[in-house]
C-alpha cells in the first residue's frame, strides 16, 4: 500500500509540465456545461460527471479501495470540483469519501454551493476541502483555484503545501472578470495536514 502511494506521489511533479485534469461533479445540466467551459478556458483537461457515485466510479473507488487496472497517466485527477447539494450522495459525502481514501486524499477538493451557509462552509473546510465557492461560479474563481493548484503542485513536489493564509487567496483576478464587486465568498483555511 505504501509503495503504491509513493509511486502515486512521485508522479505529481509532472503536473506542472502538463494541464491540470479536473473532475467536475454536478447534477445540474446547466452547471455542468458552464463549469466545463470555465475549466477549458482555464486550460484544464476536464471530465464532468453528474453524481458523486459516478465520480467515485471514475476514480475507481466504488468497489474497493483501489482498482489496480487504472491507467494512472490518463485518468489521474489533479483537482475535484463538486457541487454540494446533489441527490443521492451529496458533495460533502463525496468529499469525505475522497479524504478517507489513502490514495485519493491528496487530491484537492473544491466544493461549490449556491447557499452561503457558514456551518456548511465550515464543515466542508474541516473535512478537508481546499475551498468553498459560491455559485454561480465565475471565471475568476476558477482561474484563481486552478492557478493555485498548479503553483502548489509545482512547488511542493508531491508533499502537502504549507498552511495557506487568507491573504494568499486575495490575488487580483485576471482581466476577464467583469464586475469589480464580485460577491464570491471565499473562506479558506488549512484542514488537517
Amino acid at each position, binding site marked *: 500500500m505504501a509503495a503504491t502511494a509513493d509511486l502515486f506521489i512521485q508522479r505529481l511533479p509532472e503536473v506542472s509540465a502538463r494541464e491540470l485534469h479536473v473532475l467536475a461533479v454536478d447534477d445540474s*445540466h446547466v452547471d455542468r456545461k458552464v463549469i466545463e467551459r470555465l475549466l477549458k478556458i482555464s486550460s484544464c483537461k476536464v471530465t464532468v460527471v453528474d453524481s458523486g457515485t459516478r465520480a467515485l466510479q471514475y476514480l475507481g473507488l466504488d468497489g474497493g479501495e483501489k482498482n489496480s487496472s487504472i491507467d494512472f497517466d490518463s485518468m489521474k485527477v489533479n483537482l475535484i470540483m463538486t457541487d454540494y447539494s446533489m441527490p443521492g450522495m451529496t458533495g460533502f459525502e463525496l468529499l469525505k469519501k475522497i479524504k478517507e481514501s489513502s490514495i485519493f486524499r491528496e487530491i484537492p477538493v473544491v466544493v461549490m454551493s*449556491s447557499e452561503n451557509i457558514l456551518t456548511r462552509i465550515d464543515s466542508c473546510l474541516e473535512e478537508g476541502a481546499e475551498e468553498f465557492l459560491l455559485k454561480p461560479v465565475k471565471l475568476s474563481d476558477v482561474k484563481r483555484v486552478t492557478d493555485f493548484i498548479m503553483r502548489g503542485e509545482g512547488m511542493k513536489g508531491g508533499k502537502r503545501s504549507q498552511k495557506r493564509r487568507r491573504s494568499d487567496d486575495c490575488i487580483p483576478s485576471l482581466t476577464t472578470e467583469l464586475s469589480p464587486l464580485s460577491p464570491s465568498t471565499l473562506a479558506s483555511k488549512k484542514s488537517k495536514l
Partner: protein
Amino acid sequence: MDVGQMQRQWLDYTRSLFIEGFLDNQFLQLQQLQDENNPEFVVEVVSLFFDDSERLLKDLNFALDQQGVDFKKVDAHVHQLKGSSSSIGAQRVKNACIAFRNFCEDQNVEACLRCLQQVKQEYCLVKNKLETLFRLEQQIVAAGGSIPMMELGF
C-alpha cells in the same frame, strides 16, 4: 436594416433586459465565455436551462397536485430551478424561486400554487426575451456582422 443598425438594436434590447431586471451580471459572464471557437455557447447553455425548467415546472405541477403534498420534494425542485436560473442570470425567475422556497417552508399549498404561477410567468417572459435576443443575433451573423460585447456601466 444594415448590420450597424441591427447591432444597435441588439445593444438596446440587451440593455433593456438588464434594466428591467430580466437578466443580471451572470448572463454577461456567460457571454464572456463565448468566442469564435465556441460561438453557440450561450445559446447552448440557455437551451439546457429551457429544457430543465420545463421539466421542473411539470414536476412542480405534479407535486403540488397531490393529496398529501410532499413539501420536501417541492422545495427540492424549486431549489434546482433557482440554481439553473441563477447560473444563466435569469434574475426574475431566480427571485421568484427564492420567494417560492419561503412558502415551501411554511407548507402553505395555496401560497405555493400562487408562487408556481409567478415562476411560470417569469419563465415565459424571460424565455420570450431570450429567444428574441437570439433571433437578433442570428440576423446580425447572417448579415456578416458580429455580436457586440456587452459591458456593465449603463
